[in-house]
């Protein structure tokens, strides 16, 4: 197995900044906006996006939370038992624009679970999806609104998003698994 670097720290920073601008553009500003990260790395990315938003629109202070989707997954009986993570939504999502944030978009099943989880929390005005990397292979009719980088990949490959807060460095790499 060999790892191939796809994004460096500076690429990642640039991608997040672009996503932040696109969010502001589509939302026409930073009002009525909430960023909800999907644990674990989605939450970290959501916090980074919020910082960038605040640097672009000083004093904007966009609320950030986490949305655990474990209990809403459709593969609870195919995988070993998953631990849950906290769901922490600091303000009501009613009539807000929720931006779901995740590191990698793949089958779309996690996002489907997130949409169900949101339904149990309230009725947002709109839900958008921001991802750092979109590797294709969707299994559901779901697409991202904001994409850091499109990464066409093979099924056997793994995309690793590395973040300073968890891994000590920023970067995205692909593990190429030998086919057998």
């Amino acid at each position: 197995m060999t790892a191939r670097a796809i994004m460096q720290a500076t690429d990642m920073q640039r991608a997040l900044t672009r996503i932040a601008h696109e969010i502001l553009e589509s939302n026409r500003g930073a009002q009525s906006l909430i960023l909800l990260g999907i644990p674990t790395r989605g939450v970290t990315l959501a916090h980074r996006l919020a910082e960038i938003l605040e640097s672009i629109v000083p004093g904007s202070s966009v609320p950030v939370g986490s949305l655990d989707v474990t209990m809403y997954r459709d593969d609870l009986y195919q995988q070993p038992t998953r631990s849950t993570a906290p769901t922490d939504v600091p303000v009501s999502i009613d009539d807000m624009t929720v931006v779901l944030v995740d590191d990698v978009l793949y089958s779309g099943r996690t996002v489907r679970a997130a949409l169900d989880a949101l339904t149990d929390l309230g009725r947002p005005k709109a839900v958008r999806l921001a991802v750092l990397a979109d590797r294709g292979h969707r299994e559901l009719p779901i697409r991202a609104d904001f994409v850091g980088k499109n990464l066409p990949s093979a099924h056997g490959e793994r995309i690793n998003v590395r973040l300073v807060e968890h891994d000590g460095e920023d970067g995205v790499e692909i593990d190429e698994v030998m086919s057998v």
Partner: protein
Amino acid sequence: MKHLLSTRDVTREEAIQLLDIAEDMSAVNDREVKKLPALRGKTVVNLFFEDSTRTRISFEAAEKRLSADVINFAAKGSSVSKGESLKDTTQTLAAMGVDAVVIRHGASGAPQVLAQSGWIDVPVINAGDGTHEHPTQAFLDAFTMRKRLHGAGSRGKGLDGVKVNIVGDILHSRVARSNVWLLQTLGAEVQLVAPPTLLPHAVNTWPVSVSFDLDDALAQSKPDVVMMLRIQQERMHDAFFPNEREYSNMWGLTQERFYSLPAKTMVMHPGPMNRGLEISSAAADSPQSTVLEQVANGVSVRMAALYMVLTGEREVTHD
């Protein structure tokens, strides 16, 4: 986790995972929509061969909040009271297609017999068996302690160094047994306090210290937690102690004893309480008492337990 039969089988890692999941379940219990879809389409049967409305409704609430379909099976007035065996009852349920069994039974070991019988091949949760164990009670007790001690920072933590005194009828208590093993696994220091008649003969082989003198125990160990156990009615006339008054004077958490405790000492009781016997109202109704928290936490912990035994890949052991 395939079954939850005894806290002795649970590793520290699994125990903390269960408590952490229970934290997230407890957040769900605080919100408007108190329901999660995790067990949608799964049927859980509450198989109660012994009356216990409290435990049964706690499990039922947990099952419903995880969207499971619930079948309640109480032995009283059913074919069981007419002599139908555990085996026949279970095979009947298996034929109906249930996905998990929560069982309370008067015979120690009945849940384990069920789990290894081959009569039914589904996860089994022990909701109290004879004088053996009551694992979810121990988990809700540990959860309550952890929450009081660490609050929002509870996640990932054990109960290392926490001093717990368990007081009362240890011999017949499934709550005590489950607590002894789980608390030890989580790193707590357990002391049992009881008259010698109400301690198991071989209690010296347990990972606990033992005292016969409650005042001495409270003064010496300065416990973080005092857990009072219920004295069952049927013990009162079987020469375990002379009478209720003497028991209460020597091993009850009387008002006087309670006031001598530091303000931070938690007072726990699995319920239902005999006020004036093992616990005074002063203790039971004080802010130090966790009795109602224990009830609330019971639902969260049982949701976590159900989630852990029901989800995950299941290897088929019988065909």
